[in-house]
Structures are given as structure tokens and as C-alpha cells.
């Protein structure tokens, strides 16, 4: 009886891992590439093209039944290709080409001409819909398309590499349309100028899309790149981005494609033209024809000037109210000798600010902060700075921009300009009313959502390090010095309940910087004091011991160390981790070890960075002492 029960229990305890019969195995599910080519009856280049367009990639079977070094595709994928209309279409096109050559060979020019004109065409619309059934799917996969389109927008149309100029044009157009949309919705979040190019992070429909654009310089087409592959990708991405742009414009209630101002287009200011078109003609800043036309033609729109005036008035009012409140406070202090902070000051200011700003409905907090960052600031871009990038960034963060060149909305000598972006060693004529800053200032401000002090970024200086906004410094283990400074500045800016962008930035920044520096100094001093105290303490201890007839602390320690290590290994304290580690299964143990290894590697990297920092600091200190 007991035995029967035991057997039953045995059966219950055992896990049965027997494969069921009739289930298709790997050999039925997967197919090698060559077999797939045979089944599809096409050549390899055609197959590649179809795979790229259709988004089909090889898969990894559990058992590679035809050898390790073969590429395997899922049978379903290949069958999917087999029923693709594009496959039939490409065959048709090939047959058609033959007809044309035949007509030409027979000197039947009429027919050849007619055939040439009525070539069958194809679109990739159905593939876009098939691969991305809903809009959010398309947005999720937008990183590669955007990078590719922005690259093609800067490529030279080249016949030797068969990069057709139509493709370059349409890519440029699409990229500009995208940028115009981002500017309009203020959805640019982060910018990072790297050696490779400029990274932009955009938030569209709740998805964060990070893409890379090359520096706008002449690209040299490398010889070892197969441009057919790139062009096939570009072809699909172009269609995809076109539809995405349509949807985005549609969601804003705008017409697609937007209409470009031909004059601006000629002046190579297409982005500005697009932005203007999107803005819907409300701020119809006419072109700057000549200098004389400036006065009567009012280059800055009426709205903008009004807003500026308002801002000025607002500042005055705020200053007045603050002064009044300050005096009131003093009197209160004198009378009651009590510290009573009037809570309503910032609130008042804030409400005022809210009234002035146009409030857009269903706008999240981040978009609002982005939109207001450069509000009331006016920028002028020098010839030597990357115009399109800066135009994109500044407009996305709510600033007004003009530039040195044709089609600029207002000239350099306009008085509303608060910041001039320059990147040259010296500047001949300087307006006293503006800050002459390097382009990095704009990017850093945008990344940190505060107006940083302009002083370190001024003309001719080496700017502070440009930090990547994509890095979580705390998680990484090392916080660069400048990141710390920025953090303090941000905190300080947040403590000021009502930030007034632009208005008193100069004063604020100065104060902030001074405060930050003072705090750091204090920190350093405190540390020094602590060290001194510790040293003193140990010295006193030693004295006491000496008096008592014992040896110095150092010696004693040394003496104590030696026999211990010789006599017995120190009794190890049991680590509960060690115990638990024993109980891991082999797979988990390997995983655990791999994780530990990677963690230690990461730690070592951080250590190396910290070491480098320490060395650099030391060098600097030495230099300082030498100069002193």
C-alpha cells in the first residue's frame, strides 16, 4: 500500500519532458537562404531588396540542421515573400524593359518612346501599412529612418554611386518637414553635439526618438559601401516618413505637403520657410529686401514686438512690486522683529506670467517648459555657426532667430537681439546690449532647461565640457564636475519660484554662479578643517601614549599586524551571500558570475575615469601654484 502511494508520488514529482509526436521540427520551420532563393525563383540582389523592403530578417533555429555557417529564414517569411505583389511587379518591369530594348533594336522609335513613357510604376504604400499596422508602431521604429533620411539629405547626388538627385531632394524635403513639425509642437527634448554628428531626441506621441544627423559638411562617399543597399533602405524609409509626416501634419490640422516660399527656398532657408508655412501666416515676417526697407517694413512682426514690450512692462511692474514688498518687509521686521516671509510674492508674479503666456490646452509640463525656455529671447546667428541646427533648436525652445544671409527676418543691427551666436576667435564690432555666445550655450541651455550663465561661453573662450544628456551620471558612478555645477544652478533656479527667462538673466546668472562657487569653497574649507581636526586628534593621541611609555600608534599597528598574519589566517566572517551562492544551479551560477564580472568591469572603468580626473586636477593645481 505504502509502496503504491510512493510510486504515485514519484510519478507526480517527476517532470515529464517527452516531445509530442506530430509537431513540426526545425527542419520544417526553417529554410536556408539558397533554398529560399530557389523557391522564390529570384536572384540574390532581388531577394535582398525584397527582404529590406519587407522587413524580413534571418532567424536563429534552435538546431541548425544544415550546418552552422548558413543563414536560416523562417518558412512563413519566405512564403510571405512568395505572395508579395512586388515580386510579380519586378518581373513585369523586367519583361517591359526587354520590350523597350527590342523596339529600339528595330529602330521603332515611336514604340520605344511610347513604351518608355508608359513604364509600369510601383509604390511601397502597402508595405508601410503591412509592417506598421498602427501609427504608434511606425513611430516606435522611426530612429533608423530619421538617421538615414538626414544622412541622404546631406549627400551629394552622385552618378558614379548612382545616388539620384531626386532621392536627395526628397530626403531633404522630408527631413525639413519633420523638423518643422518638431519645432511647431516644441517636442525637441535633448540635443547632443558629438564628434559623429548631432543627436536629437524628440518626443512624438509619447515615444522618445533619438536620431543622429551628420555635421553639415561635404560627405565623402566611401568606396567600400554598397549604395544599392543604402538606397533600398532610403526608398522604404522615404515612403514611411512621408506617411508619418502626413499623419503628424494632419493631427495638427495642416495641409500636407506644406508650401514653400520660393524666395526663401532660393535663399537656402527652406527650414525657415516651412516653419513660416506651419505657423499659418500669423507671424508673417517679410523678407529682408534691403536695409532701407527695414524701418517701414517692420521686420519683426507686430506680435513679437508687442510681446517684447509687454515683457518689458512686466519686468518693470515686477521690480516695482518687489521693491514695495521689500520695504514693507523691512517695516514689518522693525515692528514685530519676526521673520515672516510674504508667501504671495512669487504667486503673484507667477499668475502674472501665466496671464501673459498663451496657455495651450492639453500640453504637458515638459512641452511647456521647453516652449518657454527661450521665450522673449532673440538670437542672431553668425555666418560660421551651423544655421539649420541652431534654427531648429532655438525655434523649438521658443526663441526668435535671424541669421547673417539672404532671407533673414531681421538684420544684425536690430536692437531686439539679445544673444548673438558666434564661433570665431574675435568679433570686430560688438553691440553692448547683447551676449556674444558660442553655439554650445544654446545646446546646453536646451538640455538643462535653464538659462546658464553666458560668461564661460563667451566669444573666444574655450567653453566648459559639453555633456551628454543621455547619461544618468549617478547610475554610471561618476558625476563630471560641470554636471554638478549645472545641477546646483538648476536647483537654485527651481528655488526661485517664478523664473523669469531672459529678463534678469544676467544678474541671476552672476548671483547663481557666485553662490555656487562660494558653496564649493565652503565645502572645500569644511573638508580641510575636518582633516586638520583628525590629524590633530591622532597627534594628541600619540603624545598621550608616549607619555604613558608606549610606542607610537603607527609602530604598534605594524607590530600587531605581523604576527597575526603569520600565526593564523584571520577568522572569516560568514557572508550570507557565499552561503546562498552555493545553492545556485549551474546556469544561474554562471549568470551570476557573468553579471559580477560585468559589474566589476564597469566599476573599473569608472575607477579609471576618476583616476584620470584626479591626475588632471593635480596638474592644474600644480600649474596654479607655479603661477602664484
Amino acid at each position, binding site marked *: 500500500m505504502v509502496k503504491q502511494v510512493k510510486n504515485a508520488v514519484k510519478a507526480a514529482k517527476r517532470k515529464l519532458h517527452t516531445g509530442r509526436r506530430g509537431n513540426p521540427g526545425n527542419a520544417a520551420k526553417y529554410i536556408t537562404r539558397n533554398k529560399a532563393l530557389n523557391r522564390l525563383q529570384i536572384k540574390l540582389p532581388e531577394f535582398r531588396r525584397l527582404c*529590406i523592403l519587407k522587413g524580413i530578417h534571418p532567424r*536563429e533555429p534552435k538546431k541548425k540542421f544544415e550546418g552552422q555557417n548558413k543563414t536560416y529564414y523562417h518558412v512563413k517569411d519566405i512564403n510571405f515573400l512568395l505572395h508579395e505583389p512586388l515580386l510579380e511587379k519586378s518581373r513585369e518591369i523586367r519583361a517591359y524593359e526587354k520590350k523597350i530594348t527590342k523596339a529600339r533594336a528595330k529602330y521603332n522609335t515611336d514604340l520605344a518612346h511610347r513604351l518608355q513613357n508608359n513604364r509600369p510604376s510601383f509604390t511601397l504604400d502597402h508595405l508601410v*501599412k*503591412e509592417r506598421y499596422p498602427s501609427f504608434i508602431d511606425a513611430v516606435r521604429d522611426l530612429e533608423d529612418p530619421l*538617421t538615414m533620411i538626414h544622412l541622404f539629405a546631406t549627400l551629394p547626388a552622385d552618378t558614379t554611386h548612382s545616388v539620384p538627385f531626386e532621392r536627395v531632394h526628397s530626403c531633404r524635403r522630408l527631413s525639413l518637414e519633420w523638423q518643422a513639425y518638431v519645432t511647431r509642437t516644441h517636442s525637441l527634448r535633448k540635443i547632443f553635439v558629438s564628434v559623429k554628428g548631432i543627436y536629437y531626441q524628440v518626443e512624438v506621441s509619447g515615444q522618445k526618438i533619438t536620431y543622429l544627423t551628420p555635421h553639415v559638411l561635404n560627405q565623402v562617399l566611401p568606396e567600400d559601401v554598397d549604395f544599392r543597399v543604402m538606397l533600398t533602405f532610403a526608398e522604404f524609409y522615404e515612403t514611411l516618413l512621408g506617411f508619418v509626416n*502626413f499623419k503628424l501634419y494632419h493631427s495638427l490640422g495642416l495641409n500636407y505637403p506644406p508650401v514653400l516660399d520660393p524666395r526663401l527656398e532660393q535663399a537656402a532657408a527652406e527650414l525657415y520657410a516651412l516653419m513660416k508655412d506651419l505657423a499659418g501666416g500669423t507671424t508673417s515676417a517679410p523678407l529682408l529686401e534691403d536695409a532701407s526697407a527695414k524701418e517701414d517694413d517692420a521686420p519683426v512682426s507686430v506680435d513679437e514686438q508687442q510681446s517684447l514690450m509687454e515683457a518689458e512692462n512686466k519686468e518693470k511692474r515686477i521690480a516695482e512690486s518687489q521693491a514695495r514688498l521689500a520695504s514693507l518687509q523691512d517695516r514689518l521686521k522693525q515692528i514685530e522683529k519676526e521673520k515672516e516671509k510674504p508667501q504671495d510674492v512669487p504667486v503673484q508674479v507667477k499668475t502674472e506670467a501665466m496671464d501673459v503666456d498663451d496657455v495651450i490646452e492639453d500640453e504637458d509640463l515638459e512641452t511647456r517648459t521647453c516652449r518657454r525656455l527661450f521665450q522673449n529671447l532673440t538670437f542672431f546667428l553668425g555666418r560660421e555657426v551651423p544655421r539649420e541646427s541652431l534654427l531648429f533648436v532655438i525655434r523649438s525652445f521658443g526663441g526668435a532667430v535671424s541669421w547673417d544671409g539672404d532671407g533673414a527676418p531681421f538684420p544684425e543691427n536690430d536692437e531686439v537681439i539679445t544673444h548673438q551666436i558666434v564661433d570665431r576667435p574675435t568679433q570686430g564690432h560688438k553691440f553692448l546690449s547683447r551676449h556674444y555666445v558660442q553655439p554650445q550655450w544654446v545646446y546646453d541651455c536646451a538640455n538643462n532647461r535653464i538659462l546658464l550663465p553666458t560668461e564661460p561661453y563667451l566669444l573666444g573662450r574655450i567653453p566648459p565640457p559639453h555633456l551628454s544628456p543621455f547619461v544618468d551620471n549617478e547610475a554610471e558612478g561618476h558625476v563630471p564636475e560641470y554636471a554638478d555645477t549645472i545641477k546646483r544652478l538648476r536647483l537654485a533656479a527651481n528655488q526661485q519660484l517664478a523664473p523669469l527667462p531672459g529678463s534678469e538673466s544676467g544678474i541671476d546668472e552672476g548671483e547663481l554662479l557666485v553662490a555656487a562657487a562660494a558653496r564649493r569653497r565652503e565645502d572645500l574649507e569644511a573638508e580641510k578643517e575636518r582633516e586638520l581636526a583628525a590629524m590633530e586628534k591622532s597627534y594628541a593621541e600619540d603624545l598621550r601614549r608616549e607619555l604613558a611609555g608606549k610606542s607610537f600608534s603607527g609602530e604598534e599597528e605594524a607590530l600587531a599586524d605581523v604576527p597575526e598574519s603569520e600565526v593564523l589566517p584571520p577568522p572569516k566572517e560568514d557572508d550570507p551571500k557565499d552561503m546562498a551562492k552555493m545553492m545556485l544551479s549551474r546556469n544561474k551560477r554562471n549568470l*551570476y558570475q557573468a553579471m559580477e564580472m560585468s559589474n566589476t568591469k564597469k566599476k573599473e572603468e569608472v575607477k579609471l575615469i576618476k583616476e584620470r580626473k584626479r591626475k588632471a586636477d593635480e596638474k592644474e593645481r600644480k600649474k596654479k601654484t607655479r603661477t602664484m
Partner: protein
Amino acid sequence: MLELTVMKNLMIAKPPTRAILPKTSLPQAPPRNTVGEIPLEFYKDEEHIGYDRAGRKLKKQARKDQLDSFLDRSDDPKDWHKVYDEYNDEYVELTKEEMGMISRIRQGKLPHAEVDPYQPYVDWFDWDGKGHPLSNAPEPKRRFIPSKWEAKKVVKLVRALRKGWIKLDKPKEKPRFYLMWGDDLKVNEKTANGLAYIPAPKAKLPGHEESYNPPVEYIPSEEEINSYQLMYEEDRPKFIPKKFDSLRHVPAYAEFIKEIFERCLDLYLCPRTRKKRLNIDPDSLLPKLPKPKDLQPYPTTCFLEYKGHTGAVSSISADPTGEWLLSGSRDGTVRVWEVQTGRCKKVWDVGGSVFCVAWNPNPALPVVAIAVSNDVVLLDPEVGDEEVQLNIAKLLAVQPSTSEPTENTPLISWKRHDKLRGIQLSHQQNVVRVSWHNKGDYFQTQQQSCFGTSTIKAAKSKPFPQASWPPFMFVATKMHVRVYNLAKQELSKKLITGLQEISSMALHSGGDNLILGSKGAKLCWFDMDLSVKPYKTIKNHKEDINAVAFHKSYPLFASCSDDLSTHVFHGMVYSDLMQNPLIVPLKILHGHQKGVSDIKFHPTQPWLFTAGADSVIKLFCN
């Protein structure tokens, strides 16, 4: 030059005209030459060009050289309208009228100004009153029926139009893009062909080091960059951070297109599989174990050391009452210790390296078995009261005999050991292990195998009298454990360990659970009800495990190894069959200077004896 040739042609064409039409408006001198209209090259090689009217030869003029002709030309202002007449071999000066003619011809007009090309037409046929056309033939039929070929052509065109081969007006251009998606925000996890959609992994976001102006600490020093050359190419960092003082100094990134191309290749050539990347704290992988504190008592600290052996202690065994401890050493001595005090009660010099010692588990009969080289010696440890001593004396006074007198070479021969006053059992080979039956009535010995493999025998059985629980013997071979049913005399089970080489074995007091220690530093727990494969394999030690042991009453087991440590585990076996045994590592005991060769639990207390190769025996208490 061009003019001259034109004139020349004109002149060549002229002579016959002049001859035929003498009434030209220009006054013409008759030609000197009378040869007529013949090719002039007939006279090419002659000294004359022809004959005059009188039949005299006309001599060719002397050829001027270039200099003379140039001088003539420059001297004569009228030279430009002189033309050489080849026929008469003379230069002719063109008249004003002739010049006018030439200029008119060159303008594409008629040569004579007085000729009117647009004179009214004068019909040469007089129509009036004639009544008949020129031809009187009847009109052909084809003039009245439509053309067959035209009809065929039209049919072709019509067909081409109908079939759309010819399109007369260009088709209207539809807008290329339209609203493709609605407002649904459903995320699709599958592709259209029903397979799971595996999105391409996103590119890594750039860190500070990729900045055009990175912080100083991210820029490697010269030495570091040089040291990269020594690395393997795969390990070498692909990107070396660099600092630029200003944005305008940043050059185009040469690898940009190549990197994007590589990304493209990855997208369509790389097999995609979903891999779980555990971005977790590695400690979360560790199993949640009950705290060792809650599982007390277990041995934690070294309480006593038994010193006296001069060689490595190879084996120990505790007396069933827990008062005495027996130890055998490589120095050829066997000692009996008092557990409580650490006093050495008795020393036997057995005269050979001791492999194994075992105390009889029957408390009524305290006899010890010692394996020394080829012999097993049964001795009286002289503990216990008088009655017990008498019993032992009786037992050990058995007449020496050979077990199988019929055969020529007896397996084992019994002898009386006079020196130690015990029984000596001589074997043919070295005896490596001796172990008692639970009740103390039987013991078994294991000789070193002829093949040199280390086989181990251990026996354990349920009490004989109960018929339903047959006695079992466990034999560990190198890789498997065989369980024999002694009552039926058959193999009942074979445990598959998966170990490299089994070194030791211990059986739980319940009889269903077994632990094995191996040379590969692995410890296996078998639940024999569950499977013939290990329930749990623990890799706890760093070196070979020498011995494992179960406690008789407490849920404790331990393993010792050459890595100087002894691990104590909590191993609870539940009476509920559905519940798996609970194994919790409790404590790692250190203290020996050399490898730990044997361990035994105290029979009643949660204490542990460890014997080390450093000739010390230690007692760990809770």
C-alpha cells in the same frame, strides 16, 4: 582663301557659258586658248597650255615663288579682286559688276539684279474653248473607296487606345501621401505573417566621451592610446574621445556613412532572436534561504582540539554513547580520546598506516575495527563496566580459523593478535575501509581493487527481522551508486550521479536520502524516492571533497575538503512525501592548516569532529 576658291569655281564654270551665250551684259574678251572643253590636266606635263587661233602654242607662264607673289600682292592694291584663270593661264581682274554678282550669290540671291523671280505666271496652254481635260482616262475605283491600310492602322490605334497602350493625356497625379493610419493606438506584437515581431535593437545612446568637447577625464592619455596598440584588435576601443576647442573645428566624421551602412547590414542580415537581458542586481538571483540563526543548533566554534598524533589523521569514529572518540593516523597509531576533556585514554601502535577506524554502533558491545594495511583488527577499547568487558573478552577469544578451509587460498584468514589482544583478519590486499552494520552484528570491509580504481563500499540496512524492509547495501563505483537488496540478492537500483569521481558517501537515518561527495568538489543529494538522478548538486568547495556525514538525530549534514574548510548544512527531510527536502548551508568551519580528511558528527549532540592532515582533531560545538 574661301573667296578665292568660290571665284575659281565660278571662273571654271564660265568659259563654255561665255561661248554659248555671247550676249552677256559684260564686255568679254575672247579666250586666247582654243583647246576647248577638255580636262586641263591633259596639259599638265606640257610646257604649253594650248593653242591660239593661229595654231601657235601658248606657253605657260613662269611660276612665281611665294615671296614674289606676296610682294606683287602687297604692291598691287587691286590684287584682292584678281582671279587666276587656269584655262588661259592668266590673272583676270574682276569688274565691279562681277563683284556685285558674287556678293549677290553669296547672299543667296539671284546673280543678276534685273531678273525678277516672281513674275506673274503666264500659262502656256490656251484653255478657252477646248472642252476637254488634258487626260481623258476614267477616275480609278480607289478614289471612291476608303483605304484598307488606313483602316488597318486605325484599328490598331483604336485597339491600343482601348487597351491603354496609348494614353492620350497624361494621368492625373494623385497625391503621393495620404492618411494611412487612424487614431487607434494599439501596439501590434505580431507581423502580418503571424510570427512574433522582433524589433531591431536600438543603437546605444552616446555617453560623455562622444562629445565634441568632453570632460578632461574622458580623454585617454597618450600612453593609454599607445597601449591600445598592444591589445587584440577586437578588444581595441573603436572610438577614441577627442577634444575640440570650438564647434567650428569639428570635422566631418569620416566613418559616418560606413557606420550607417553597417547598421543597415545588421538590420537585414543578422538573425534576430529575443534574448532576455537581465538588467537586475545579481544578488536578486540568489535564493531566499532561511536565516541560519533560526536553524540552530549547529556547530559553529572550535571547542576542543585533540592533539597527540604525529601524522595525518586519516579516519575518526565516535562511540555510540558519545563519550569516546577513536582516531587512526598515518603515523601507525590508533588513539581513543575522551570527548569531554580531550584526554587520550589509550594508544595502540598497530604498526602500519591506518586507513580506517570504526566503532561498533552497538552500545552493549564496544568493539573497534581498525583497517591497517592488509589487516582488519578488532580490539577492545576497554570502556564500559565489568559485564561489558566480560562479553568482549568472550567475543575476542574466538578460536582462530580460516573462513573457507575447503579452498586453497582463503579470502580472509582469522588470527589472534597477541600483542594487542584482539582478532586480526588478514586480507589479500590493502583494506581501505571498514564499516559496521547498524545493529553491530556484522561489519564489511573493502579492499583496494585489483584494477586500481577506488571503489567504496558502505552498508546500511533496515533491521533484519522486518520482512517488509529488506536490507540494502550501497556500493559506490566511480560514477554510479548501486543499491543491492541483500535479501533477494539482486540489484535494486542504480543511481546516476553525473559526478567525475565519487569520494565519499553518507546515508540519512531515514534511509531514503543519500549524499555523495566527489573529487570534482561537488556534493550531491539524492532523494531516492524522487529519482535516480540527484535532487540537488551543490558546488560548494574549491577542492576535492574527502568526507561527508549525516547527523543521526539532528537535521544536519557536513562535508569536508582539501581546501581546509568544512561546510555544515541543514538538511531537513520531511515525513510528508510531497515535500522536497530542505537544504540550507549554515556555516563554513575553518581552522585546519592542512586538508580535512574525515568528519563525524557526535551521536547525540549537534557537535562535529573534524580530522585534519595536520594531525589535529577538532571538536566544533554550537
